[in-house]
């Protein structure tokens, strides 16, 4: 193809980015405007954009009005922000894992990190918290922070082991297998715990496994945001070596990539993203694996200069969409997030993959 068509496809890239960016904005807005409680649009806008609303105590507003303000500012906005951040984080993590392991099936959970987080939470929910009568359903709550901490710790522990192993094992495929094995181990331990737990606790744990962007409050976001921000920044720095890695590890090294160091940074960043999102939102499946493929399919390239920002945006869009859909049922009903992500996402990804003839190589 000639110079001209290159320019053309460059414009094509920009156009696609603009469209996706537009989608992200719209979805974010939709997530905030629409929820299970009906609030008129102009009221939402006034709440979002007039400082008077933010600052006034209940005195200035009716009970209903201040209730609406609380819903928007304290429930919907954090939920939308969390969805956006989580989507971005998971997509980036999945992308890293796919490039590092040269495996299209890789995702944030491939190193067993998520399973580690699951294990931590299961330990807290199912085993600790004292014995309960057979059918007592609720979870002792002083533990919300404990649950989050346990998830991070569990993810971190598995990460530590994987890193240690990666220093000594040269082959990346072996690393993948080790991570997979850890995942199985952690999951089987969880199943064991479920087996011996009373129905009520299992319910509580199950609820957690459905995943949710609505479990966070602003304080949580003050942690989530910087972590994901730093990870994204590092991710951008990694674009160059990740591109080199596309040619394979040997070529990458011959071009100057410090392989062991890069590998470790990629693993740490990828795991950090997966762990922190899981800690605050529960295990969210599908986004990490599917979004990078979506990005590659839409932009027809594996160049990380394009795919990293594309994955970030598409990840955010996907998560926001899933969040919106899971709140669609009327009367406050709510669909499990993980079901929604897969149900919506799979057809889209399959369609994109088929169109882009990704059969030959996914990179």
């Amino acid at each position: 193809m000639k110079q001209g068509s290159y320019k053309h496809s460059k414009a094509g890239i920009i156009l696609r980015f603009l469209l996706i960016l537009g989608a992200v904005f719209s979805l974010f807005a939709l997530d905030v405007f629409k929820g299970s409680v009906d609030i008129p649009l102009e009221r939402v806008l006034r709440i979002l954009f007039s400082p008077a609303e933010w600052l006034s105590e209940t005195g200035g507003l009716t009970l209903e009005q201040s209730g609406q303000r609380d819903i928007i500012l304290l429930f919907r906005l954090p939920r939308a922000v969390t969805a956006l951040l989580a989507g971005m984080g998971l997509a980036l993590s999945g992308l890293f894992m796919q490039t590092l392991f040269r495996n299209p099936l890789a995702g944030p959970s491939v190193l067993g990190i998520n399973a580690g987080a699951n294990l931590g939470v299961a330990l807290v929910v199912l085993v600790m918290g004292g014995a309960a009568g057979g059918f007592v359903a609720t979870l002792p709550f002083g533990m919300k922070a404990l649950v989050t901490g346990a998830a991070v710790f569990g993810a971190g522990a598995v990460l530590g082991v994987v890193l240690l192993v990666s220093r000594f094992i040269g082959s990346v495929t072996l690393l993948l297998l080790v991570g997979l094995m850890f995942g199985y181990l952690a999951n089987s331990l969880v199943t064991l715990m479920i087996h011996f737990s009373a129905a009520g606790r299992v319910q509580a744990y199950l609820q957690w496994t459905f995943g949710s962007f609505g479990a966070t409050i602003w304080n949580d976001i003050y942690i989530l945001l910087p972590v994901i921000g730093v990870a994204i920044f590092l991710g951008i720095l990694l674009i160059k070596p990740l591109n080199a890695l596309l040619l394979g590890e040997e070529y990458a090294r011959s071009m100057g990539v410090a392989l062991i160091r890069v590998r470790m940074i990629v693993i740490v960043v990828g795991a950090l993203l997966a762990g922190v999102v899981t800690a605050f939102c529960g295990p969210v499946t599908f986004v990490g694996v599917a979004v990078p493929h979506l990005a590659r399919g839409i932009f027809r390239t594996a160049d990380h200069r394009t795919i990293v920002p594309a994955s970030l945006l598409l990840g955010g869009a996907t998560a926001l969409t899933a969040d919106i859909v899971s709140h669609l049922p009327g009367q406050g009903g709510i669909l499990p997030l993980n079901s929604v992500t897969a149900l919506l996402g799979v057809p889209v990804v399959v369609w994109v993959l088929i169109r882009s003839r990704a059969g030959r190589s996914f990179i």
Partner: protein
Amino acid sequence: MKLIDARSIHTGYRHGFRGSVTISKHISASIFSGEVVGLIGPNGCGKSTLLRSLSGLQSVLDGKVYIGETEISHMSPLERARKISVVLTERVHAGHLKADTIVSLGRYPHTRLSGGMTAHDRYVVEHSFSAVGAESLRYRTIDELSDGELQKVMVARALAQEPQIIMMDEPTAFLDVTRKVELMDLLETIARTQGTAVLVSSHDLELLMRISSRVWLMDESGRLHKGTPQDGEFKSLIRNVFRIPAHYVSF
């Protein structure tokens, strides 16, 4: 100018905690700028291992490899990449990448952290494409290229690294005759016109002898014999090592 100096190196593999396997012992060799060194030998004798050891892809079990004045293990991957680039045998699996992107990757050791390309970088990339005669392939994606075209692109990438020496491990293995000749010719031209040294291993003896200024022959025990394509004794040594009857070959 002496680019690479291997001083009594032992090549081989380390197996983690279980010790190591030595392929070759006491190899001393050098490569000078502008020359084409052909590396030949029967399968499995250790050519690849030697090449990888000299390029830094593998560490040596004993002895030292010097790039200029510096020992190779004291160099960072980036420093090494500015001196040596490689072309390997297997086809790269990066189907969705454009040839241009791949050759631009060759600028890796020279570009800033952000990966942004300066005008000079872009010039080098363009020049690399024309040096290998692959201008028309520039905006094609890899999965659209034939093996021969792809190898040209990989050579262009190796050139874009602006190395002092390019090392190639059986680059013509999967190419048809025309492409083999083309590629070998190209290597000779590059060495001649750019002053870049080329170390190339191959089983295409006749083509290699034609373009090499010096030849390294590795025998089954991993010993390295050095000579020139013109040297008659050396040629009979080659025939012995490969067990080729005299009347089979033209050299």
